[in-house]
């Protein structure tokens, strides 16, 4: 039980902290890696997350489930970090390249089944996801991997719900385009 682990950490048991890390580090690292797009940044974010968790353990409510809490905190940490470095690009700063048709044309050069297979290739999707511009990658990760609702994402990113929907759609279009040119 997480509440037992957290109570043990609160009482100063470092082994409990190690157990909690072992239990959730893969989840936290995966999320960080997909948000940041690089392993170095992901490592920094994971460290920051666990240090903050440890230093503020007294304020942690043991009745609150760890996973949803960690998703929110990790995303906020990531956004704060980007904002403090002034790296987070706002929606308005996008180039006109992003204003495109509502759907990509179908590529007729390949058989439909051959094309479809590309959208199941997880290695290709992982690569394409990391190549996405940050504003699209973040919403796609939050929506499809963290299972956050559009409203929750709009609250975290401080943008309206329409913007979140548009970013998801445009991000997906970029993924389609990237995957269509992927060499199998």
């Amino acid at each position, binding site marked *: 039980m997480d509440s037992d682990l957290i109570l043990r950490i609160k009482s100063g048991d*470092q082994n409990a902290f*190690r157990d909690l*890390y072992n239990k959730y*580090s*893969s*989840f*936290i*690292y*995966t999320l960080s*890696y*997909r948000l940041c797009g690089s*392993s170095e940044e992901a*490592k920094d974010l*994971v*460290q920051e997350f*666990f*240090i903050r968790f*440890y*230093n503020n353990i007294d304020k942690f409510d043991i009745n609150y489930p760890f996973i949803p809490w960690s998703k929110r905190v990790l995303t906020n940490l990531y956004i704060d970090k980007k904002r403090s470095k002034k790296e987070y690009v706002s929606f308005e700063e996008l180039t006109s390249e992003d204003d495109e048709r*509502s*759907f990509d044309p*179908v590529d007729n050069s390949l058989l*439909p089944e051959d*094309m*479809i297979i590309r*959208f*199941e*290739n*997880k290695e290709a*999707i*992982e690569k394409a*996801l990391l190549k996405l511009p940050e504003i699209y990658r973040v919403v*796609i990760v939050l929506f*499809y*991997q963290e299972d956050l609702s*559009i409203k929750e994402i709009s609250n975290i990113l401080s943008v309206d719900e329409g913007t979140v*929907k548009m970013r*998801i*759609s445009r991000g*997906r279009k970029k*993924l*389609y385009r990237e*995957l269509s040119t992927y060499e199998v």
Partner: protein
Amino acid sequence: MRCDECRKLIELEELGMITSKQLSELETHIANCPECLYLRQRSQRLTNSLKNLPILSPPENLFSLILYRIEKEEFIKNCITFFVFMFFALLIGSVFLNNINYSIFSVEIEESVFYIFSLVWEIFCNNIFLIYLLIGSILLFIVFSVYKKRKELLS
């Protein structure tokens, strides 16, 4: 239903916002339109793949790095607490000793707060014993912290 309307419904489905009525309209259209059927399949497979990407393993030394940073931060916090404590202890001590007119601290106290700081400085300058005491305390503190850290790492 026209193909462009169908594609809007596919977008709604991607966002998880399609109603059951819209879904049945979509199903009816794709039954007779191979191009929209392809786009729908592509959309569904991408969604499934995005939801089921593999979990990655963090680098092996990451936990050691986290512990190291936590201990470093704790050490710095302890040092700051120690210096603040020492400063106020010396401040209170010097004021108290002046009040009882102790011979080596025979400096008059004025009401100005700033004067208290200059008073502490003056006492430090005039009494090498206090400097020894401060240096000794710092050394003791460092030795204690190193011992504590070593013990934690060994455990």
